[in-house]
């Protein structure tokens, strides 16, 4: 729902990551990690990103989104598993004392630039 705001943040951070001595480069790709629990729709994010980056150093950059699975760890029996559906109890011992190890990310990992 707020993919435009997120796209603006992505564009800002990506632009700020271009080294000072390389200001004439073209950014080819922005690599994101988006957890499956994060409230972000990749297609909407790409759409907003395209609009936001028109006529900037990021224009035409591909937004590459790696979707991160929701991995949980049971604090009682130490089992780790990937959560596939809306169940957050341990798949082995059914304990409710569960820690989420991944799946809530919304990170920019890297940018790839080309010097033409």
């Amino acid at each position: 729902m707020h993919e435009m705001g997120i796209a603006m943040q992505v564009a800002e951070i990506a632009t700020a990551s271009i080294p000072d001595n390389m200001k004439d480069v073209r950014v080819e790709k922005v690599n994101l990690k988006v957890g499956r629990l994060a409230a972000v729709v990749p297609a909407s994010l790409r759409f907003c990103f395209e609009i936001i980056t028109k006529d900037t150093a990021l224009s035409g950059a591909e937004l590459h989104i790696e979707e991160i699975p929701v991995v949980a760890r049971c604090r009682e029996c130490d089992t780790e598993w990937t959560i596939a559906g809306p169940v957050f109890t341990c798949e082995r011992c059914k304990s409710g004392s569960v820690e989420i190890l991944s799946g809530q990310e919304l990170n920019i990992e890297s940018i790839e630039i080309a010097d033409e």
Partner: protein
Amino acid sequence: MAGPESDLLPQLILPDGVCNPVRNVCKPLPAVKTYGCQVAKNSERKIEMEIKVVRKVLDVNDTMAAQNRKMFAEKNIFVLNVMSSPGSGKTTILEKTLARAEIKSAVIVGDICTTNDADRLAGTGVPVVQVNTDEFGGDCHLAAHVIGNAAANLDLDAIDLLIVENVGNLVCPAEFDIGEDARVVVLSVTEGEDKPLKYPLMFRVCNAALLNKTDLLPYLDYDKEMAVRYIHQIQPEMPVFEVSAKTEEGFDPWLEWLRNCVRQKLVKQNAN
């Protein structure tokens, strides 16, 4: 293959097992190879680089949230972020809570537009600040910088509890840290038992749930036990307070939980 060029060419992986494909490694081609003529040099190829960033997209919000958290801690204020879908009864619950809790409080209310909720809450005598997000494009949630700015309108030395009534939305507010101490989600019995399954992130990030409008249960086919089971499927240890904001049934345990939260923060702050 024999010949002077054999060192320049990658080794062939033969299917008859003469070269074991596992042990066989392709030699990398040199940058420029000559077979009696010049080949295009590297200067025509693009120079590509990957620059590591490794930053949270919501970094800016999280930094502001941390600043809020520090400020509220210095002022000994417990901050509660109250979220729900539109129409679940947040404002009515807060009207009744503020009237009965006996805690020095203030409220920041977020809505896309109108000051209706602030006007209602002001009736309790508690200081209220209304934030309308349509000034900045109709944001579907409250962000940390908005809370920081709104709090500047309140006398923070005079309160122990700040309640933030978030924009009615079960999706986005769950993503945004605003510097709160605890989060509460309000679910009403007119909404469908499987709401927690449809909005797992919201129920994962909240500390307690209020199941509201229980006065309507005799008129509905709502399976209350199923709703609570679904909440616990997503957040197994979450306290669920079954309340009616209209009749105030079930309010005592909810108020006690809230008073306890405020007390514990004061104790913790004074110990530091």
